[in-house]
């Protein structure tokens, strides 16, 4: 035994360790692979031994080999062995190896779960640390799910070393197992304020990383981050936070306003360039998000630009680069502030660093104006000459074209100049962008009518000198230009000065060396030219000239007929036959020119690139519907393409068809080849005639051509763009003088004759008029084109799963205990299902009717009331203060709501503490954002309820104030209310019908009950019958004009909604919305979408995603309104809910259609979850006595209306029914869709109304009482 150990250790002495391996690899430079393969064999031997030290050594070496690119996955199990060693030095090696080579499909990973768990809970912090580090690299969804809890516990470890690592690895866990984000988030948030800076920084990093992908869910953390930003001195953390704010600001412009100041301070104070740069970047993001409306931010822009200039001027290339990068961001929104630094940026074009030059080019793109375009392009052309034979030159070329053609040639005043620039660019050697230049030429020639004469002349010259571009292989790219040149000359041949010459040029034998598609264009356009030439010649002279031209065609075309290219061949033979026929006619002295011209008559209009895609599907055409009965599954596969065609959009099907065809063609070709090979009589193709031709004259070896190519000649006739610059300068000078004269004389308005496009130019450039009338023909689009196509996000993005609304999460977490307690009582869930049953029965079944005398309870009530009154007095004072504050703040938040009383939050706080704090959480942000000073903690706390109130205005409107049409009310009515009176009536009718139905039901119950009970209830039901009631409506404005007014004044559709608890399903709420078109145009394609919260979700048709909108099933002609209903599922009903939503629609006017949207907030009040349910006084009494109802009360003062009106209001707006009424006292009942009982005792005496209420859900009760209070406070 001892001997064995000794032998083992001696063996080990001869084992190679990592250093030996590295040294060995060095020493075997010439046969490295061989050496390594012997090493691997050795390692395999070592791994077979039992000694863990040997194994660890082997794994260590494997890790190194893995780094060199060798696959070591075969050793995965051994790695696991080493990982599970108890000795730290080995364990570390194991984990290192695992982190290098394990991945999701490594199957041994599942063996590690328990080992890792053990290591995580090891008393040795380094064991835990190494496990965490390793796990971060190879965590799989399974591991994440199994270990999430362990890691979460580690987040509160005593050692910061572990906490830090645990926090960081949580990010990986979230990615693999998104469900863990919800439970882990509160703790993660906690770590933002960890005492250890390392842990804090880790938490910041994780949240920043999460927030970068789904920023909107993290907005509520902004105050916390803001605090960190103003307090932290750790630059790494600061950088991250500032970057995060950069991502958040686009979502919340108010945040930007708040950030500007501290960021500016940081910019001034910091000495760290990295921090400065990030600050500047975020300030830019803020300025972008604020966009136009903030004139006083020019100082910030100036500061940024100034700092960036310092960066750019720095000798450090890195700073220069970043400066330019940031500058380009400013450029997008504030081009003027950047333009003043043109000098600097042009300087950067000379920089030796290519990345910097490219950045500078990017900047130039945005800096051009009508004034400086020529100058800038001239500079760029100089650079083009300098930068010979580099990719940078290609980059320059594309940039020049980009710059000139941007926004529909907005900055070009002189198209002759532009054409000449393009022509100059064709002389570049070795560029790959011939096609780009060609398409520009075509585009300009087609769309700018006025330039055609000039363009045609230029193109003719190009064709004449085509030999400059062909021949040399290097210049291949550029010959694409000839494609454009030939087409332009052919299509606009009427502008040619000497069409005959061009025709000859196009039929030169050398053309046959061009690529096939260009030859094809040559042939086709030769025919066009031929037509023009014929026409000219027939007009002038006798027939001989025309016949000569035909002869020329007949002589030259056979060359193309022999072409190997099908397209060329076909066109050529067609045209050849045609010309031959023409020649025959000519010989008979028949005038043919007219008819030949007619072949090519008509003008081609440019069509927008996406036009085809955007043709809307005509109404009534259902592309998904089967045209014929769908084929049965058993049918042959040949039917398949048909089915696809019927199903898919046309663009897809087209692509697929060609694919099929190609495949088929290939197959056929293959078959044919085989056949031919087997057929002894088949004559195989001789070398093509074209090739023979090429070789015969030896074109490629003519030395003259070579010389031509290496020296960019100035071809006579080709204008230099510089001349145009000069000319243009002169022209502008002249114009200016003229203008001055004119102004002096007449002070008349500016000259007309400017292209439509040019009106949009910046003001300073308005003096410059374009050289000639330029009408840019706009591209054709189909009618009713749909303006946007949606870019889908990458479906594989792991971050998509992490898009979790964390605000609601907090809410939910706080509410969870409630939900749990609810679940403990199975009776209730049962009750919810049969919501219509009379509550009395439930009460009976549930409670063994406590026999406590009623008096006692009422006494208690009274006492409680006193307490409450005391509370109320206190809170009133507070309220006043807050109200004051609120008013100071003005209307910056939710404008126009300033009159709303601040009631709700007060009560929420008193009655139901937890939900109040929830609401505070959510709307904390709103408050924080609206408040200028940096919030101290105390302030924040105090502010919370206020914020809740502030967030409430929308709920208040929605909670059914509808007091407007009350006769004794001085308040002004909202215009929408009157407009929709029609609907109101309809609505009321409906309501009545419902009530009647209910009454019937009630009767039913009544009988049922009287059978078993005995005591008859009195005055059960609503009070409607007593006296005519003032009209009421539950309709209220949903979308304020506040959003709309900015977008368009003329057509703001108003929407009103009504939320109604619906009985159909326990947790469904139906919202019916009336859409009214207020503008003069047709509204269509309305899409209604709501951002679901965890609690409330819009019910969407099956198969649609959670973010898809619902199409509103109608269109709205001007002035018409219509109603649509939407169903929502609600989980918890104890709190009111707010959902953000958007309505998108297309406003179609006569000549245009615009995409518009309207944001709204849908508010579900708690009252909307209540259902008017009749109840009988005996059952009611039992319910009250049962003792499991919580008590609360509210006092309304200054209510000036008859008691029955008051009751009617409560019945109507809050869905109660009167149980019993005695003089000025009434008991009322309602129940929620989830079966909570709500009982009210309403008493009135001299304008004071007291409502004592009981409910088994205190939170719900509190909220309902608030809403009642609100209803009456608006009277």
């Amino acid at each position, binding site marked *: 035994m001892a001997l064995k150990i000794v032998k083992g250790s001696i063996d080990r002495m001869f084992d190679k360790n990592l250093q030996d391996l590295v040294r060995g690899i060095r020493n075997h430079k010439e046969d490295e692979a061989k050496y390594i393969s012997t090493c691997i064999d050795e390692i395999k031997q070592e791994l077979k031994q039992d000694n863990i030290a040997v194994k660890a050594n082997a794994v260590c070496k494997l890790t190194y080999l893995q780094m060199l690119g060798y696959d070591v996955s075969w050793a995965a199990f051994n790695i696991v062995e080493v990982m599970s060693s108890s000795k730290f030095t080995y364990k570390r090696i194991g984990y290192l190896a695992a982190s290098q080579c394990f*991945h999701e499909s490594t199957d041994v990973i599942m063996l590690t779960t328990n080992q890792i768990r053990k290591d995580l809970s090891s008393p040795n912090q380094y064991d835990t640390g190494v496990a965490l580090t390793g796990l971060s690299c190879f965590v799989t969804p399974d591991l994440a799910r199994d270990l999430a809890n362990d890691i979460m516990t580690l987040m509160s470890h005593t050692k910061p070393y572990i906490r830090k690592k645990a926090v960081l690895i949580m990010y990986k866990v979230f990615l693999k197992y998104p469900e863990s984000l919800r439970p882990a988030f509160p703790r993660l948030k906690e770590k933002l304020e960890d005492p250890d800076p390392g842990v804090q920084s880790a938490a910041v990093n994780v949240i920043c*990383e999460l927030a970068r992908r789904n920023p909107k869910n993290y907005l509520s953390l902004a105050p916390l981050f803001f605090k960190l930003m103003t307090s932290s001195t750790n*630059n790494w953390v600061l950088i991250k936070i500032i970057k995060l704010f950069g991502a958040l600001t686009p979502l919340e412009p108010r945040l930007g306003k708040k950030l500007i100041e501290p960021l500016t301070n940081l910019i001034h104070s910091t000495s*760290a360039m*990295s921090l400065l*740069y990030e600050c500047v970047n975020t300030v830019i993001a803020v300025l972008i998000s604020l966009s136009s409306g903030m004139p006083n931010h020019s100082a910030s822009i100036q500061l940024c630009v100034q700092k960036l200039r310092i960066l750019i001027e720095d000798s450090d*290339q*890195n700073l220069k680069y970043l400066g330019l990068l940031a500058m380009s961001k400013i450029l997008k929104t504030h081009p003027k502030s950047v333009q003043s630094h043109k000098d600097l940026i042009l300087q950067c074009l000379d920089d030796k660093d290519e990345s*910097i030059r490219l950045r500078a080019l990017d900047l130039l793109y945005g800096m051009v104006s009508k004034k400086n375009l020529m100058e800038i392009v001239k500079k760029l052309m100089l650079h083009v000459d300098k930068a010979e034979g580099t990719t940078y030159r290609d980059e320059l070329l594309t940039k020049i074209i980009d710059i000139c053609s941007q926004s529909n040639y907005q900055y070009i005043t002189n198209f002759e100049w532009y054409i000449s620039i393009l022509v100059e660019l064709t002389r570049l050697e070795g560029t790959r962008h011939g096609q780009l230049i060609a398409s520009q030429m075509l585009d300009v020639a087609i769309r700018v009518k006025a330039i055609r004469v000039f363009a045609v002349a230029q193109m003719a010259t190009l064709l004449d000198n085509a030999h400059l571009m062909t021949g040399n292989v290097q210049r291949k790219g550029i010959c694409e230009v000839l494609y454009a040149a030939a087409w332009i000359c052919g299509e606009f041949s009427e502008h040619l000065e000497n069409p005959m010459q061009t025709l000859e040029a196009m039929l030169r034998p050398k053309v046959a060396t061009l690529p096939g598609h260009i030859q094809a264009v040559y042939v086709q356009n030769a025919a066009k030219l031929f037509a023009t030439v014929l026409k000219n010649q027939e007009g002038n002279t006798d027939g001989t000239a025309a016949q000569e031209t035909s002869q020329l065609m007949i002589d030259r075309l056979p060359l193309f007929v022999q072409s190997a290219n099908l397209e060329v061949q076909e066109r050529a033979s067609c045209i050849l036959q045609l010309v031959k026929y023409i020649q025959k006619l000519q010989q008979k002295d028949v005038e043919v020119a007219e008819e030949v011209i007619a072949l090519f008559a008509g003008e081609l209009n440019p069509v927008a690139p996406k036009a085809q895609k955007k043709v809307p599907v005509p109404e009534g055409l259902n592309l998904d519907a089967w045209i014929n009965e769908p084929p049965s599954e058993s049918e042959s596969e040949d039917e398949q393409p048909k089915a696809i065609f019927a199903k898919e959009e046309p663009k897809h099907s087209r692509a697929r068809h060609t694919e099929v065809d190609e495949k088929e063609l290939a197959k056929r070709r293959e078959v044919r080849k085989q056949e031919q090979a087997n057929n002894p009589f088949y004559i195989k193709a001789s070398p093509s005639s074209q090739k023979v031709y090429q070789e015969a004259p030896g074109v490629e070896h003519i030395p003259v051509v070579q010389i031509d190519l290496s020296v960019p000649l100035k071809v006579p006739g080709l204008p230099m763009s510089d001349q145009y610059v000069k000319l243009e300068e002169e022209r502008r000078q002249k114009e200016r003088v003229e203008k001055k004269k004119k102004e002096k004389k007449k002070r008349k308005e500016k000259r007309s004759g400017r292209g439509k496009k040019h009106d949009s130019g910046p003001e300073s450039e308005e003096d410059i008029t374009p050289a000639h009338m330029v009408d840019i023909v706009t591209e054709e689009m189909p009618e009713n084109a749909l303006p946007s196509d949606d870019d889908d996000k990458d479906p594989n993005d792991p971050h998509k799963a992490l898009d979790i609304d964390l605000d609601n999460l907090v809410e939910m977490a706080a509410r969870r205990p409630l939900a749990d307690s609810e679940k403990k009582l199975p009776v209730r869930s049962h009750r919810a299902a049969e919501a219509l049953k009379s509550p009395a029965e439930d009460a009976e079944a549930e409670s063994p009717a406590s026999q406590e005398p009623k008096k006692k309870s009422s006494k208690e009530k009274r006492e409680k009331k006193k307490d409450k009154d005391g509370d109320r007095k206190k809170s009133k004072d507070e309220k006043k203060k807050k109200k004051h504050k609120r008013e100071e703040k003005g209307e910056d938040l939710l404008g126009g709501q300033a009159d709303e009383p601040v009631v709700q939050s007060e009560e929420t706080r008193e009655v139901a503490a937890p939900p109040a704090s929830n609401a505070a959480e959510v709307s904390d942000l709103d408050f924080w954002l609206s408040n200028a000073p940096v919030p101290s903690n105390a302030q924040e706390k105090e502010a919370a309820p206020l914020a809740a109130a502030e967030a409430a205005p929308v709920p208040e409107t929605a909670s059914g104030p509808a007091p407007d049409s009350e006769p004794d009310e001085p308040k002004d009515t909202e215009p929408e209310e009157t407009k929709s009176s029609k609907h109101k009536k309809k609505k009321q009718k409906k309501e009545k019908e419902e009530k009647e139905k209910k009454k019937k039901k009630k009767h039913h119950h009544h009988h049922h009950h009287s059978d078993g009970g005995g005591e008859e209830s009195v005055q059960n039901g609503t009070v409607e019958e007593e006296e005519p009631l003032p009209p009421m409506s539950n309709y209220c404005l949903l979308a304020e004009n506040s959003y709309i007014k900015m977008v368009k004044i003329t057509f703001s559709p108003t929407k009103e909604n009504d939320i109604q608890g619906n009985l159909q399903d326990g947790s469904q709420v139906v919202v019916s919305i009336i859409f009214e078109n207020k503008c003069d145009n047709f509204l269509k394609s309305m899409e209604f979408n709501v951002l679901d919260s965890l609690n409330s979700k819009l019910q969407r048709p099956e198969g649609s995603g959670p973010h898809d909108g619902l199409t509103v099933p109608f269109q709205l002609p001007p002035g018409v309104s219509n109603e649509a209903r939407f169903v929502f599922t609600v989980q918890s009903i104890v709190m009111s809910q707010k959902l953000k939503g958007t309505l998108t629609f297309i406003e179609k006017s006569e000549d245009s259609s615009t995409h518009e949207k309207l944001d709204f907030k849908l508010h579900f009040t708690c009252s909307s979850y209540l259902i008017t349910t009749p109840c009988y006084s005996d059952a009611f009494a039992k319910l009250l006595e049962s003792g499991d109802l919580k008590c609360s009360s509210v006092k309304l003062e200054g209510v000036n209306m008859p008691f029955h009106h008051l009751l009617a209001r409560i019945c109507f707006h809050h869905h109660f029914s009167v149980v019993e009424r005695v003089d000025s006292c009434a008991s009322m009942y309602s129940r929620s869709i989830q079966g909570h009982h709500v009982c009210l005792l309403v008493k009135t005496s001299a304008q004071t109304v007291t409502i004592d209420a009981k409910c088994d859900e205190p939170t719900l009760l509190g909220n309902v009482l608030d809403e009642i209070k609100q209803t009456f406070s608006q009277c």
Partner: protein
Amino acid sequence: MIKAILIFNNHGKPRLIRFYQYFAEEMQQQIIRETFHLVSKRDDNVCNFLEGGSLIGGSDYKLIYRHYATLYFVFCVDSSESELGILDLIQGGLSAAPARAVSAVKNMNLPEIPRNINIGDLNIKVPSLSPF
């Protein structure tokens, strides 16, 4: 986030490779080759940022590198990292730390390693290195 840290010598031989996102071995080597190709043809006096390594990441990713004597230190990061911050990290942290690891292969000519590095106001304490 940092996607990968690559350290290789002037000939593109990997000296320390760490990917924080799984790639198969061949892919890793290809990335190293491509990165080396991109980085090695750049002068020393040009900026240290590179956009458009096609293999790793995509448009959101940047290569940030430094070249010390015979070694290239390349970080592949996405846009949530501060460019200058990463440069500081390389300069301050890495040029010192892997000295231990890299000097094991004995071809390291690191610049003079200071005890304390001050870059702007980022202060980095260099751990004392055990001499090999």
